[in-house]
């Protein structure tokens, strides 16, 4: 499974963490936990498999269990999805961050 941001959400990094925007509800959500922000920063750059995320050096500070739990949470909220039901991220999406 390749994980990416759902077409219903946009995400960007901020100094204090990250911001999600839900295009369906028009609501802004805050990402504050370090692990959530790290995972989102990775996935926002390009779609990745779960194995690629788990092995990425950017997440070395976190246990595989906590990374998987974070991925599960983000999937449950509809923020992340498998690529079959998502749109591609714009190529330059995170370059300004």
């Amino acid at each position: 499974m390749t994980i990416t941001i759902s077409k219903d959400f946009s995400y960007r990094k901020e100094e204090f963490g990250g911001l999600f925007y839900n295009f369906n509800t028009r609501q802004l959500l805050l990402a504050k936990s370090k692990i959530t922000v790290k995972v989102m920063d990775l996935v926002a750059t390009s779609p990745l498999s779960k194995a690629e995320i788990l092995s990425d050096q950017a997440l070395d500070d976190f246990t595989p269990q906590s990374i998987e739990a974070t991925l599960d949470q983000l999937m449950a909220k509809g923020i992340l999805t498998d690529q079959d039901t998502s749109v591609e991220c714009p190529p330059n999406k995170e370059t300004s961050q």
Partner: protein
Amino acid sequence: MNGELRDQMRRGLASPICLTWEITYGCNLSCVHCLSSSGKRRPDELTTAESKTLIDRFREMSIFYVNIGGGEPMIRRDFFEIIEYATTNRVGVKFSTNGSRIDKDGARRLAAMDYLDVQISIDGHDRESNDAIRGDGAFEMAIRALSNLKEAGFDTPKISVVATRDSVEHLDGLDAIAKEYGAQLRITRLRPSGRGVDSYSYLNPTSNQQHRLYQWLSGRSDVLTGDSFFHLSPLGEPLDGLNMCGAGRVVCLIDPVGDVYACPFTIDDNFKAGNIRDRDFEEIWQGSPLFQSFRETEGPTSCTNCSAFAACNGGCMATKYFTGLSLDDPDPDCAKGLGANSKDLQSNTALITISRRPQRLELSHQR
């Protein structure tokens, strides 16, 4: 919105959450409260190519959505080209219109798009009250647009109402219109900007009306407000939203020729941060000394010791400025009764005297 997040917002974000982009000042109406004094088009409006380049920048900066307005944005021949370019690049669009150009074909085209909100402006519950503000025939064209959108299956358009001395007496009637057309009601604060400078004294709701408006809004989370009534939050539970002035911190305005202002209500040289034809938009947003000064400000000096400061953060900067007040003064409609309009809460008339020559902005007062 918790205090910690609001503090982060006060210090400014890497990019705006959203911004207002007025793509033309051309308009077929001449509303008495128009923020931008719209009517004639500027000959040097951003071209289609410049508009698309700007949208590319919005996408690169991860700006979540843009509020497109004017003027009447749909009079631009490239209107659909612009909004379709934005939404296909996942830059959400909310656009405000008087509805005159939403015919059946246009409604179907809009209904087929994702990431799009349409806001039809109505300023009265019936033809007489609406057209007194927006001009003859305006009510009928707005209702026709709503009807066309409903027929086309557009999902939940918004009816955008400016709170005036008349409209706040008919909120239930306006809500009924919204429900009839499957729309959502949106009520925003009247600002004394543009032609609003001339109409503010007789349109701005009285203090008593503003208190009743707060009560009415408090029970209706389904009614949108554009976070514009935060000056009333000290009256009780805060209304939904940031409850602070986001000018130059989380929002800004880009006008038809690319000038960048702090917010949609501050179209004045004292609030201009730059022009996107001269300088990259992200550089303006992040590096403008004007915007930096806002981000370093805790709040109006006459408000920071107030027990209600955490609720309203001193109110609306534009409303102060265009009523001739210092930015360090309380909001003229301060809910604690400290503003120029609200000192006599029983008064049925606004007490403020409009200054046609707003004072120069003293940046040192912002710190």
